[in-house]
């Protein structure tokens, strides 16, 4: 579904992504792990073009989305994204946060979007918060709302950028539960995460990134239990 070819990205002198080529199939749950500064977030943000790659190609559903004449907005409508810092819209109610994009992009009528928001909020147990503002929610609740806000666009793939890194420890569980739930529904997902246990349990494939390259990839059992790359062995010995 997503095909990445020779992706490069530098910030000034610093090469963040170094000729990355990778493919992601429909239904896959890909976890991206690696030390900080390894380029994993940049890699993820390139997939929906929040970062513009310097060179290389990204193909999504058979279309080259890195081409200059592509309508970036319509591509992004099929790719949901969840951020480390939630990025809920503080001036809108929880329900409005969820319905804004589908309604303004004419995907749904306001009443249909409201109905869908009700269903999504019921599913995550926050329906009683529908008409309050984000500042009334805990971090875990905010992130769960951010996830269903992305789901409300009915994306084909969900990108998670360290979704639990800004959370208090006791709130990580509820967010991971929801992500697991989304995974079980068959959604294609790419998750940048530091939660190794979670990656191992949910991912169908794990990529280890370091120095802007994918140094090793495998199914979780083999990657975590029989790492071959030296850097990966080092990394795992520190985090596990």
């Amino acid at each position, binding site marked *: 579904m997503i095909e990445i070819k020779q992706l490069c990205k530098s910030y000034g002198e610093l090469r963040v992504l170094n000729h990355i080529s990778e493919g992601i199939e429909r239904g896959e749950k890909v976890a991206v792990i690696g030390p900080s500064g390894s380029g994993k977030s940049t890699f993820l943000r390139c997939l929906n073009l929040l970062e513009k790659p310097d060179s290389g190609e990204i193909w999504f559903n058979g279309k080259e989305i890195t081409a200059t004449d592509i309508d970036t907005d319509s591509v*992004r409508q099929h790719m949901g994204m969840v951020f480390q810092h939630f*990025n809920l819209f503080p*001036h809108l109610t929880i329900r409005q946060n969820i319905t804004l994009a589908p309604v303004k992009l004419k995907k749904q009528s306001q009443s249909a979007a409201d109905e869908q928001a009700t269903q999504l909020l019921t599913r995550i147990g926050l329906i009683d918060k529908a008409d309050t503002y984000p500042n009334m929610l805990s971090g875990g609740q905010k992130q769960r709302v951010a996830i269903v806000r992305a789901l409300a666009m009915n994306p084909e793939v969900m990108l998670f950028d360290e979704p639990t890194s800004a959370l208090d420890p006791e709130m990580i569980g509820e967010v991971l539960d929801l992500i697991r739930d989304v995974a079980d529904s068959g959604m294609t997902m790419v998750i940048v995460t530091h939660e190794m246990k979670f990656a191992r349990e949910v991912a169908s494939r794990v990529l280890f990134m370091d120095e802007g390259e994918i140094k090793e990839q495998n199914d979780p059992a083999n990657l975590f239990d029989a790492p071959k790359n030296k850097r990966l062995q080092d990394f795992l010995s520190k985090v596990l």
Partner: protein
Amino acid sequence: MRLFLAQSLWSDFQKSFIDKDRWLMYLDGLKMTLLLALVGTIVGIILGLLVALIKYSYSTRKKNKPWLSLLNWVANLYTTVIRGTPVVVQLLILFSLSFMPNGVVASFIGFGVNSGAYVAEVFRSGINSIDVGQMEAGRSLGLSSRATMRYIILPQAIKNILPALFNEFIALVKETSVAGYIAVNDLTKVADRIKGITFVNLPLYIVALMYLCIVYLLTLIQKRIEVRYSRSDRN
């Protein structure tokens, strides 16, 4: 002695305020001053927003279309010229233009254009005060940069800069006192005219007091609004 002072003050007051219903002139002047400030602020907000959006879109793109570069150049020229020259000179130039119907219209345009150059800066800082994550979140949902600006960034930015915009209005109440230069009958001009008729200085003190009351009142309103806002921002 004291009695004499009081008597002379009373007589000055009579001449400058009560005789021939002159207090009505102050009222007219006050109306004009408030009208100038209001129209100036509104025109200023529209122009300022426009300029801020042009500069913002120019600064966020790596490669710019020629028309956007041109617009950005015009916007920079506008703010530089307006902020670098006195408002009285701007008014006199506007008033000298042959197609300008009268001083009031020239003042509406003049104060609006002048205020716009300053309000642009207010809007720019307001937009910059919003976390980049908000723009990214909007864009990641597939909204265009224009839609994200309109539905997500601007509503938050405007809320943040409302006190500053209100300040601009308060400042204009005082700044418009130079409108008399181009034959506009604002509060200051009224005082000057009455002074000329009656040969007493009291009208100047009267309008000074009127300005002070208005500005004080507006400041009170502003504080009340700010308190309400800070309350709704609290977690």
